[in-house]
């Protein structure tokens, strides 16, 4: 889900997608995802300079949000973190399901949190204990 709503001159996501799933005619266009082509590889999540791309998944009644994370400390799998909305209000706590460490993506870690399905379109940030 690409939350890029302004016509910024930027095409990082479109160029990163190897499957042509992100449509952008000119460098100023707002990116549009073709969900039939997208495989969830997260190349776009990893590269977006605005940290504006998120992967949303739902399986067996549980929601998963993968977000880019550039703070310290990096959470560990199984840890409970505070989950925040776009306005910075605390939604509650979530379990960390997966972490792509920052060294594997030039400093931008990817953190997947388990959330109730109705948080899928709300949860956009986390705060880790000790940060």
């Amino acid at each position, binding site marked *: 889900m690409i939350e890029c709503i302004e*016509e*910024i001159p930027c095409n990082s996501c479109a160029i990163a997608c190897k499957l042509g799933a992100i449509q952008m005619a000119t460098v*100023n266009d707002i990116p549009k995802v073709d969900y039939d082509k997208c495989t969830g590889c997260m190349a776009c999540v990893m590269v977006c300079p*605005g940290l504006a791309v998120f992967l949303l998944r739902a399986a067996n009644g549980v929601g998963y949000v993968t977000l880019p994370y550039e703070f310290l400390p990096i959470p560990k799998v199984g840890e409970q973190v505070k989950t925040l909305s776009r306005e910075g209000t605390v939604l509650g706590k979530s379990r960390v399901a997966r972490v792509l460490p920052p060294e594997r993506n030039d400093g931008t870690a990817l953190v997947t949190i388990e959330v109730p399905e109705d948080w899928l379109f709300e949860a956009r940030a986390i705060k880790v204990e000790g940060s």
Partner: protein
Amino acid sequence: MLTFDRESRVIFHFEGKPIEAYAKETVAAALYANGLRTFSRSMKYHRPRGFFCAIGRCSACMMTVDNVPNVRTCMVNVKEGMRVTRQSGFPNADHDLLSVMDKLGFYFSLASGFYHRKLIRPAFLRQTYLKILTKFVGLGRLPAKESTSKAENSKLSMETDVVIIGGGPAGLTAALEAGKRCPNVVLIDDKRMLGGQLVKQTHRFFGDARHYAGVRGIRIAETLTKQIRELPNVTTFLDSDVFGIYDRHIVAAAQENRLLKIHGKKIIIATGAYERTLVFENNDLPGVYGAGGVQTLMNTYGIKPGTKALVVGTGNVGLILSYQLLQAGVNVVAMVEALPRIGGYLVHAAKVRRQGVEILTSHTVIKALGRGKVQSAIMAKIDNSFNPIPGTERKVDCDLICIAVGLTPTYEHASQAGAQLQFVPELGGFVARRTKFMEVADGVYVAGDVSGIEEATTAMLEGQIVGLHAALTLGYGLPSDEEKLEAWIKQLNDERSGPFGEKIRRGLQNVMLPEDMKIGVKATVS
């Protein structure tokens, strides 16, 4: 995403006390890390001053280093055994008895320059007045004897095809394009490393992915610097301040005690911009810093600037700075913006908003409070004429106020080189009028923020354009260069064609010179 060299340590002396510092730190950074906040006292009222810009432009950090007065400590590296003292304040800058001037100043109403009119008679006392005055304002004292520790003053004269002033994104790409074609290119920068503002930008850049979008500013700086080092025909002078462009294309720079006199057939000015500041009560209190200065502390020297920050300005610089402050573990208590809307990209704003940072539009800071340093600030809502609305004042606790209210081009060199200057608010201030190929005077070009405040990606494109054009007009083109030039100009226009480019396009309309310079013309060698 940053690593800091914490291995080698150095001990220097500050006002008699030994201070431990890391080898690559500047004196100002090391002193700040050791808790110093009052760097000097103001000249007339002896108000405490901290540093502001951390980059050699504001001179609030000047101290006496090894007996040499008025050294900008933010530009000087620590050395083992160095002796540093502050120059103002009686008996010292921390507890200055003369700060009574600040309390009484209102009653004295000392007019500007009163000493020029009053302290000149009788004539035989003039020198005495001067001596007292210099001590009073804190301009330091010259050593009584000539220092024997410095090397002999020397001069270096050099002829070159293209001389580039400024090693930021525009200067670097210009040097690369010119260096790939011309036999001799010189690149001059006043810092101790190349990269300009890129070295402080830890975030990933926007723009075209084929042109470094998605790559962190610091990596771009590393890549470009490495490419320059691989070109043997490009000579780089660091720590060199270009102080003048003289007749017949002589560029003069000072590198410590050496005078550099470079004659370039073509001159490219890529000197970037200055930070603007904001007028509000007590805006000179230590703790009020420019955004760039805070970034330098955090990203170049790994020093935490404070614990609670108020950021003024929501352009991209302010938004990125707030994010970097959060990454450094600083609590950003609020961001204030005078306009009714956020100035920068909303994705940058989203990154800080979702961490809980309050962004208050139509607000500004009206007063900083604290004894000797910032301890709190008063913000207020403003009306359509930018006047504070009474009753909306709100006090916030903070120890850092970061001013990110805009940049203005460093136009001085272009003016010396004979360019026509014009004040264009959309481009940030005074800029030079230029042709389509960014030529502002015969054989003199501008590129980057100095030609108009914009982005790093446009700076790099402009640098490529002027570097290539300079080489072409000297007769050193490569095949298909003319197509490359047109393609880059088109790319620049494409990037500016969106809504964020509207302001730039409006500004540029006013500064184009009517005729195009013809390319492919050989310059005469004199």
